C-alpha cells in the first residue's frame, strides 16, 4: 500500500511538471487540457474522495510553486478532487472495465470543470468576461481534458483496468 502511494506521488509530480511545461502550451482559444484533472479523476475513482482531495491539494501546491498563485491552485485541486470523488468505485464492486472507464470520464469532466471554475474566479489576466471565462472556456477545457483522458485510456488506463 505504502509503495503504491509513493508510486502515485511520483506520477503526480511527473504529471504536474508535464502539465506546467507541456500541456499548458497546447492552447485552443486560451484553454489547455488539464492533465492533473485526469490524474485526480483516476485516483478519486479508484482510491476514494479523500485520496482525490489529497492528491489535488499536493498537485495544487506544486503547480502553484511553478506558476504562481499557490493558494488558488491548492483550492482548485482540492475541490476538483472532492468533486471527482463522487464517482468513486468501491474495491469490492463488480463494475466492468467499461463501467469503470465511464466513471473515470465523468470524474475527469467534473474535476476539470470545477478546477477551471475556481481558477477563473480567482484570476483573470486576459480581462475576459466572467460568463465567457467560466462557461465557454470551462466547457472547452473540459472537452480538451476528456480528449486527453481518452488518449490516456488508450495508452495506459485500459491496461490497468483489464488486468
Amino acid at each position, binding site marked *: 500500500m505504502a509503495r503504491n502511494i509513493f508510486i502515485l506521488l511520483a506520477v503526480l509530480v511527473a504529471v504536474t511538471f508535464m502539465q506546467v511545461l507541456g500541456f499548458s502550451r497546447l*492552447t485552443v482559444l486560451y484553454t*489547455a487540457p488539464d492533465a492533473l484533472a485526469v490524474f485526480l479523476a483516476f485516483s478519486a475513482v479508484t482510491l476514494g474522495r479523500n485520496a482525490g482531495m489529497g492528491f489535488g491539494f499536493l498537485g495544487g501546491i506544486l503547480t502553484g510553486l511553478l506558476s504562481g498563485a*499557490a493558494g488558488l491552485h491548492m483550492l482548485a485541486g482540492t475541490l476538483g478532487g*472532492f468533486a471527482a470523488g463522487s464517482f468513486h468505485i468501491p474495491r469490492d464492486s463488480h463494475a466492468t472495465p467499461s463501467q469503470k472507464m465511464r466513471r473515470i470520464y465523468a470524474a475527469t469532466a467534473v474535476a476539470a470543470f470545477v478546477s477551471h471554475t475556481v481558477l477563473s474566479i480567482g*484570476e483573470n489576466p486576459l*480581462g475576459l468576461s466572467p460568463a465567457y471565462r467560466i462557461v465557454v472556456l470551462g466547457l472547452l477545457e473540459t472537452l480538451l481534458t476528456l480528449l486527453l483522458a481518452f488518449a490516456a485510456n488508450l495508452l495506459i488506463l485500459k491496461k490497468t483496468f483489464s488486468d
Partner: protein
Amino acid sequence: MNKFFGLFLRYNSWVILSLLTGISLFVTAIEKNDVPAKVTTAGSDLRAYLAERLGSLGYLLHIKEENQRLLQQNSRLLGRLLLAESALREQNALERLQHATPPAMQRFSVARVVDRTFSDRENMLLLDRGRRDGVRKDMTVLTPEGLVGRVTRVSAHYSSVMPLIHSDFKVSVVSSASGTTGLASWEGGREDLAYIEHVPISSSLAEGEEMLTTDFSTFAVPGVPVGRVISVKPGRLFSTVTIRPSVDFSRLGYVLLAPLSNEPEKLRMLGEPAPGEENQ
C-alpha cells in the same frame, strides 16, 4: 465521545475538505508576504530553467531560420543605431551646456525569452536575465519594433515580465504627429489590438499616427513606439481609439531591457515606491 468519533468518521471527507480549503485560503492570504513570495520566485526560477532546457532542443532544430531572423534584426538595429548616434551627438552638445547625463543614454541589455504563456490563467514572459545581470523590477522591456512590457518579478537569474497584452498593464502614451496624450491599455480578446483611453473628442488624433511612450510614465523610457492608430471613434466625451501594437507577441525571441528611467524623487511625489525601496 463515541458519538463524536462516529460523526467524524462518517463525515471525514467534509472535515478534510474544510481543512484543506482553510489551508488553501490561508496560503492565498499570505502569498504576498516576503517568504512565500521568495518561494514562488524560486519556483518560477526552476520552471524557467526547465523551460529553457526544453526550449533549447526546439531552438537547435530551427537554428537556420533563427539566424536569418537575427541577421534581419541586426540590420534594423544598425539602422536605429545610426539614427541614435546622430541624435546622441546633438544630445552631447546639449549636455555640455546642461552638465547632466540623462539616464536614457545608458546601455540596454539583451535577454532571451525562455518561456511565454498567453492564456486565460497565466499571461507572462520569462527572461533569462535576473538580478545578477542588473535587472531590476519596473525596467522597461522592448524590442527594436516597440514596447513589450515591464519587469514585475526578479530572481537571481531570471525575470518575469508583464506584457502590454495584460489586462492590468497601462502606460502613458503620446502621438508622434498630433501630440495627443492618452493611456494605452489592453482589454482582453485579440492580441493584436489595444486601446488608448482618455482621448478627448476634441483631439486631432488621426488614423495612422504612431503612439510613443511619454515622460509621464513611472517606468517606461520615453519615445518607445507602442502602436499605430487604426481607428478613432468619437464617443460622448472621449474617443474610442484602437491601436495595433508595434510588437508581434507571437514572435518574441529576444528583447532589450532598458535601465530604470524613473527618478526616485518623481516617484515619491506620485506616491509610488522608488526602485530599491521595496522588496524584489
